[in-house]
């Protein structure tokens, strides 16, 4: 009995230690650049995009300063866990696989994924027959990569890129037949491209949920529940007072 008591006391002590939230007055965000229009640099080197502006507005609302730290997509979750930064705001889709390692905020935007191909390409609604023998471009380690690998890996060649920019360049070079991207990114990098004309092939894709999840969220370390809560409240406020809509319009509607 005594032993049990000691053990449980110890347990409580440890739990208290872990649950002890850090009070943040400075939040560092990890972000993978470029991913236009969500996050990118102007030629002068200034960081901008929907995530960046919304993130800055959220920080202001909460009353913390924030800082953006660039990180390749490959290492973005390990970077959060190793406390290189305190949160990820980088077009990260909320899904179960990731929920196992990080804590997500409420979704702040829910963009679908879409297939993009050159205007003149003759490709039907994507299916194993339509994509047979094609070269598909995806960004390495994204949910689009997982989806394409599992569904079309046997019939098509998959080219995996470190950045979305690489992929767009190879699309222009005609090294790729079709790419699978977050819709807003494909829209601003391909549909609005001056170099060539592109189109969306088939429907916007949001299902199945095991791949496409529930929209983009800010990722935190699992123990930072209090911080996530502060961001959720701020997000709700910005949506109410119109700040969110104002930023949204700047990036997604001309």
């Amino acid at each position, binding site marked *: 009995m005594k032993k049990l008591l000691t053990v449980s006391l110890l347990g409580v002590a440890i739990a208290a230690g872990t649950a002890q939230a850090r009070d943040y007055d400075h939040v560092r965000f990890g972000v993978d650049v470029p991913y236009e229009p969500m996050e990118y640099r102007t030629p002068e080197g200034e960081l901008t995009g929907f995530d960046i502006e919304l993130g800055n507005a959220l920080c202001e609302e909460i009353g913390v300063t924030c800082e953006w730290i660039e990180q390749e997509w490959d290492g973005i979750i390990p970077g959060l866990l190793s406390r290189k930064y305190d949160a990820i705001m980088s077009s990260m889709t909320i899904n179960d696989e990731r929920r196992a*390692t990080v804590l997500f905020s409420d979704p702040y935007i829910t963009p679908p994924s879409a297939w993009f191909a050159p205007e003149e390409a003759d490709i039907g609604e994507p299916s194993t027959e339509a994509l047979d023998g094609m070269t598909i471009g995806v960004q390495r*380690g994204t949910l689009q990569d*997982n989806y394409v690998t599992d569904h079309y890996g046997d019939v098509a060649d998959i080219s*995996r890129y470190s950045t979305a920019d690489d992929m767009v360049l190879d699309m222009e070079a005609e*090294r790729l037949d079709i790419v699978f991207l977050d819709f807003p990114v494909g829209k601003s990098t391909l549909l609005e491209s001056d170099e060539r004309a592109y189109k969306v092939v088939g429907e916007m894709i949001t299902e199945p949920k095991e791949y496409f999840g529930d929209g983009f969220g800010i990722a935190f370390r699992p123990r930072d529940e209090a911080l996530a809560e502060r961001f959720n409240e701020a997000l709700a406020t910005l949506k109410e007072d119109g700040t969110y809509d104002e930023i949204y319009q700047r990036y997604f509607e001309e």
Partner: protein
Amino acid sequence: MEQLNQWLATLLEGNVIFTPQTLGYYWTGLVTTAQLVFVSLLIGLILAVPLAILRGSKHRWIKLPVYFYTYVFRGTPLLVQLYIIYYGVVFVDGIQESFLWPVLKEAFYPALIAFTLNTAAYTTEIFHGAIKATSRGEIEAARAYGMSPGLTMRRIILPSAFRRALPAYGNEVIFMLHASAIASVVTLMDITGAARFVYARYYAPFEAFIFAALIYLCLTFMILYLFRYLEKRLLAHLKPLSGN
């Protein structure tokens, strides 16, 4: 095949990372790496022989361009060469309409071109050094027999130069194998490409990269033993007569 698959499935049961799918990626990776390295070394070797002879020419205008070529390709990182060829080839006017495009648009061929030009430059210098080291006596003897310069080159200088170049060339082969790891940067699924895929999907850096490292280690040892064997066969005459 069916049996193999079943055997694999039972062997891998419960293993999240090394599934038949990921092992398949490593296998295609191994094939891609082997093709890339073997073909570029072969073409590089064929190019290097005449280039090495030209490199040793007495005429400045023959010697200098070859020297310039080897200087540039040996003085800059292979990664930069690969980028220049991979991205640059797209911007050559009219190339996308030419008959070459179906070949060049695959990531494999720009990588192959970059690797070939790179290894040809190193191999040219290795051979050049070996040719220069030919003993004067051998050349004079050939002359005395009335051999023409061309015949001397073919019968006397080159065969002995090849043998002398063997150890250095063995290093170059291993160097090329290791350098080929950058092919994954231009989307090729070589061994490293497979490892990067596995890492990005499962957040499992140790499994992904150590497995790749082991494959490379095996390949390196195979090359090492092959060259040791060749040296034993071809360089037997250089061994001290007494043995010990």
